[in-house]
C-alpha cells in the first residue's frame, strides 16, 4: 500500500489498491521503517540523505588519500608510498573527490531541497531518483574495487594517452575507472533529467522561474550542463574501453591514433564539469548570505543570469586546459578570450554577494562564516584562474603545483566551503536538531587556516617549478632561502593535517548533535525560502498543503510586510506559527508513490554488466539478464492506488503518481 496521509480527524478506512495494470503481479515493498524502508525508498528526502552519507564516506576516503600524498611529500625522498602507489593515490584522490564526493554531495542537497524549495511533494520520477542513487553507489564501488583487484587507476584524473594505455597502465585499474565513471555518468544523467523536469514542471502555483530560490536556479543550470556534457565523456570512456578491452587504437599515437581527441572529448565534458562542481555551492551561499545578512539578495536577476551565462560560456572554454599542446595561435587566442570573459559573470556574483552583506546586520553563524569564507577563498582561486587564461603564462604554469593551488582554492575554498555552509544552514531542517555552533566555529577556523596553509604554499611551489604528480623531491634541487621547496612542502603537509582535524571536528559535531543536540526551532534562522514552511524534519509528503507563491522569498514575505510609511519591513508573523498553521490546514488524501525493489536490482545488474567487460562474457550475460528482469519488473509492477478515490478529485498537480517510465 502506498504511504497515505490522511487528516488525523478522519478515520482511515482500509484502502484496497486496485492496480491499474494487472500484468506482472510484482508486489511493491511497503515498509515504512527499518533498513528496508531506506533500501527500497523512493522518497527524495531519504534518497538525499543517502546521497549525503555516501558522499561523506567518499570524502573521507579521498581525504585519507590526500593525507597520504601530503605525508609522502612532506620531506625529501619520501618513503611512505612508492611511485606506483603514489600514481594510484593522486588519480583516485581526484576521481573520488570529484565524482564520488562533490557531485553526489551536490546531488544530496539538490534532491533534498529542490522539491522543498519549489513547493513540490517529490521529484518528477521518484523511482528514477532511487536508480540514480544506487547507480552512483555501484559506480563508486566498481571504481574503488580496483584497489583490491590488482591496483587502482594511475593515469591522473584526466587520464591522458599514453598514460591510459596498457604500457603505462598494465593493471585493470583504468578498466575499473572507465567502467565506474560510465556507471556514475549514467546515474548523473538520469538524475539531471529528473531534476530538470521537476523544476520545469512541478513548481507550486505562482512560482514563476524568476521567483525561484537561487539555489534551485543554480541546480537547474548544473543539470543542463550535465545533460549536455556527460554524453561527451561517455563517448571518450567508451572509446577508451574499446581500446583497452577490445583492441582498438583510438588514442594510440603509435597506431596513428590521436591522443588529442581524448583531451578534447575529456575537456568538453571536463570544463562544464568544474561549473557543475561550483555552482551548487554558489546557490547555497546565495541562500545563506541574505538570511544571515538579513537583507534580500542584491540583484537577484543578475545572480541568476550570471549563473546561467557561466553555464553557457562554460561550454566554450575547454581548450584552455590544452594550451600546452600546441593548438595554434587562433585557437589559443579564442579560448584565452573566452576564458577571460567567463570571469565577468563570476565577478558579478562576487560583487552581488558583497553588496548583499553591505549594510546588513550580519549574524556570524557557522553557516555564514563558511559562506564568507567561500567568497574570500574563491576570489583568490578565481584570480589565479584568470592567470591561466593568458596562454604564455599558462604554458609556464601547466602541470605545476600552481595549478594544484588554483583548483584547490576554487574547489576546496569554494565548493567545499559552500557545502559546509549548507550543512550548518540546513542541518536543523533535515534532522530537526541544531549543530553545535561552538564546535562549528572550531570546524570553520581549523578548515580555514588548514586550507590556506595547505594550498597557499602551493602557489610558491608551483611558480618555483615543482611539477604536479611528482612522487618525490630531493633536497639537492630544492633551492634555498624563502623559496626552499622543503619548507613550503612541510608547511603544506602540516596544513593538511590541520584541515583534516577541522573535518574531524565536523564529524564529531554531527555525531554529538545526533546524540545530544538540542531540538531545532521550526524557523531557527528567520529564513526566506519555502523549505522552511515545512516541518523540521519535513513530513514524507513535505507540505501539508501546497503553498501558493506570490513573492520571491515567499516564506520571508509571509512573515514580513512593508511599512508603507517608513519603507521598512515589519515582522507580522512568526515563522514557527506559519508552519503550525499549515499543519492545521492540512489537505486530506495526499498520496505518495510506493517504494520499489527495482532501482536497486537494476543498478546491481548494471554493475555486473560492467564487470563483464573485465571478467568476460558470462558475467556480462548475467548482468544483462538482471537488467532485463529489473526493467520488466519496473515497468510491470503495479502502480499504487493512483486511481483510487484517495486522490483529491480536483488534483492540485503536485500529488504525484508513478508514471510508467518513472
Amino acid at each position, binding site marked *: 500500500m502506498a504511504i497515505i496521509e490522511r487528516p488525523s480527524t478522519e478515520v482511515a478506512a482500509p484502502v484496497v489498491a486496485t492496480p491499474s495494470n494487472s500484468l506482472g503481479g510484482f508486489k511493491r515493498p511497503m515498509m515504512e521503517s527499518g533498513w528496508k524502508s531506506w533500501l527500497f525508498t523512493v522518497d527524495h528526502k531519504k534518497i538525499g540523505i543517502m546521497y549525503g552519507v555516501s558522499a561523506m564516506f567518499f570524502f573521507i576516503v579521498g581525504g585519507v588519500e590526500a593525507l597520504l600524498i601530503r605525508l609522502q611529500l612532506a620531506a625529501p625522498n619520501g618513503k611512505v608510498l612508492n611511485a606506483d602507489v603514489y600514481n594510484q593515490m593522486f588519480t583516485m584522490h581526484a576521481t573520488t573527490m570529484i565524482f564520488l564526493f562533490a557531485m553526489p554531495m551536490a546531488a544530496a542537497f539538490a534532491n533534498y531541497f529542490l522539491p522543498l524549495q519549489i513547493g513540490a511533494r517529490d521529484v*518528477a520520477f521518484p523511482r528514477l531518483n532511487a536508480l540514480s542513487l544506487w547507480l552512483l553507489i555501484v559506480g563508486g564501488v566498481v571504481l574503488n574495487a580496483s584497489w583490491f583487484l590488482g591496483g587502482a587507476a594511475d593515469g591522473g584524473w584526466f587520464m591522458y594517452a599514453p598514460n591510459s594505455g596498457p604500457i603505462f597502465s598494465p593493471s585493470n585499474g583504468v578498466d575499473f575507472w572507465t567502467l565506474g565513471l560510465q556507471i556514475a555518468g549514467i546515474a548523473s544523467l538520469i538524475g539531471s533529467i529528473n531534476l530538470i523536469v521537476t523544476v520545469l514542471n512541478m513548481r507550486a502555483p505562482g512560482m514563476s522561474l524568476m521567483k525561484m530560490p537561487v539555489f534551485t536556479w543554480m541546480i537547474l543550470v548544473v543539470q543542463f550542463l550535465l545533460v549536455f556534457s556527460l554524453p561527451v565523456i561517455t563517448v571518450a570512456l567508451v572509446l577508451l574501453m574499446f581500446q583497452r578491452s577490445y583492441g582498438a587504437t583510438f588514442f594510440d599515437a603509435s597506431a596513428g591514433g590521436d591522443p588529442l581527441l581524448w583531451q578534447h572529448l575529456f575537456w568538453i565534458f571536463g570544463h562544464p564539469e568544474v561549473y557543475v562542481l561550483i555552482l551548487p555551492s554558489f546557490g547555497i551561499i546565495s541562500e545563506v548570505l541574505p538570511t544571515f545578512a538579513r537583507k534580500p539578495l542584491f540583484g537577484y536577476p543578475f545572480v541568476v543570469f550570471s549563473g546561467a551565462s557561466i553555464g553557457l560560456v562554460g561550454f566554450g572554454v575547454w581548450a584552455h586546459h590544452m594550451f600546452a599542446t600546441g593548438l595554434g595561435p587562433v585557437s589559443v587566442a579564442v579560448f584565452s578570450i573566452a576564458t577571460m570573459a567567463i570571469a565577468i559573470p563570476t565577478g558579478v556574483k562576487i560583487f552581488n554577494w558583497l553588496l548583499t552583506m553591505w549594510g546588513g546586520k550580519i549574524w556570524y553563524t557557522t553557516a555564514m562564516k563558511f559562506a564568507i569564507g567561500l567568497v574570500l577563498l574563491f576570489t583568490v582561486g578565481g584570480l589565479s584562474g584568470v592567470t591561466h587564461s593568458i596562454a604564455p603564462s599558462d604554458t609556464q604554469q601547466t602541470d605545476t603545483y600552481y595549478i594544484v593551488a588554483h583548483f584547490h582554492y576554487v574547489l576546496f575554498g569554494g565548493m567545499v566551503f559552500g557545502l559546509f555552509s549548507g550543512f550548518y544552514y540546513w542541518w536543523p531542517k533535515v534532522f530537526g536538531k541544531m549543530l553545535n555552533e561552538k564546535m562549528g566555529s572550531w570546524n570553520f577556523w581549523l578548515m580555514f587556516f588548514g586550507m590556506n596553509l595547505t594550498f597557499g604554499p602551493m602557489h610558491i611551489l608551483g611558480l618555483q617549478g615543482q611539477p604536479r604528480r611528482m612522487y618525490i623531491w630531493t633536497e639537492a634541487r630544492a633551492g634555498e632561502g624563502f623559496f626552499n621547496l622543503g619548507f613550503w612542502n612541510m608547511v603544506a603537509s602540516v596544513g593538511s593535517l590541520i584541515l583534516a582535524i577541522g573535518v574531524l571536528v565536523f564529524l564529531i559535531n554531527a555525531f554529538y548533535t545526533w546524540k545530544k543536540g538540542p531540538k531545532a526551532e521550526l524557523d531557527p534562522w528567520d529564513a526566506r525560502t519555502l523549505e522552511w514552511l515545512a516541518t523540521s524534519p519535513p513530513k514524507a509528503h513535505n507540505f501539508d498543503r501546497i503553498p501558493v507563491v506570490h513573492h520571491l522569498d515567499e516564506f520571508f514575505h509571509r512573515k514580513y510586510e512593508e511599512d508603507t510609511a517608513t519603507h521598512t519591513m515589519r515582522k507580522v508573523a512568526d515563522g514557527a506559527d506559519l508552519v503550525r498553521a499549515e499543519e492545521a490546514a492540512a489537505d486530506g488524501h495526499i498520496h505518495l508513490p510506493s517504494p520499489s525493489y527495482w532501482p536497486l536490482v537494476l543498478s546491481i545488474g548494471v554493475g555486473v554488466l560492467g564487470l563483464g567487460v573485465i571478467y568476460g562474457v558470462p558475467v556480462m550475460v548475467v548482468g544483462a539478464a538482471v537488467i532485463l528482469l529489473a526493467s520488466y519488473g519496473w515497468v510491470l509492477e503495479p502502480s499504487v492506488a493512483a486511481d483510487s478515490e484517495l486522490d483529491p478529485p480536483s488534483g492540485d498537480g503536485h500529488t504525484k503518481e508513478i508514471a510508467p517510465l518513472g
Partner: protein
Amino acid sequence: MADVAVHHETDHGHHSSTGLSNNKLAMWLFLGSECLLFGGLISTYMLYRGRVSNGPHPSAIYDIPFTSVSSFVLLMSSLTMVLAVTSAQRGDDKKTSLWLIVTALLGATFIGGQVYEFTTFYREGLGFTTSLFGSSFYALTGFHGVHVSVGVIFLLSTMGIIKKNRITGTKAEVVELIGLYWHFVDIVWIVIFTLVYLIPA
C-alpha cells in the same frame, strides 16, 4: 471509479508548468543528451575515416545501393510509427498493435541489413581493429544499431502490454514517447548515412 481514474490520468499533463507531461519532457531531454553522444561518435569517425592503415578504404567497401535500401526501410518505419501513435491516441488497440509490429519488423530488417553489411565488410578485410577507420566506423554504426535494437525491444514490449490491457491515456503517451525515440534514431541515421556513406572520405 475506473472512469474517474482515467479522467485523472489524462488530466495529469495539464497541471505541469510547461504544458508538457513529465514523461515527454524527460524524453526530450534524454534525446538532447543523445545528440551529444552521437555528436562525439560522429566527430571521432570524421577524424579517423581516412586513416585506413593496411585495411580497405571506405570507398572500396561501401555498398551505397544496398545501404540506401536499408536506410529507406528504416525511414519507412518512421511512417508506420506515426500510424501507431495516431491509432493509440484514437484508442484503437488492434491498429496500434499492428503498426507497432510493422515498425518493429522494419527496424529488425534494418538491423538484419546491418548484420549482413558488417559480415560482408569483415570478409572484405575490415575488422574492428584493422584500422582507425574500422574502429570508428563500427563504434558509430554499432552504437546506432544498438539503439535501433533497443527500440525494437521497446516496440514489442509495448505491444505485449497493450495486448493484455486496453489503452488508457497514459499508454497512448507511452506509444508516443517510443515514437519520439524511434524518430530520433531514424534522424540520426539520416545524418550518419549522409556523412559516413555519401560524402567521400
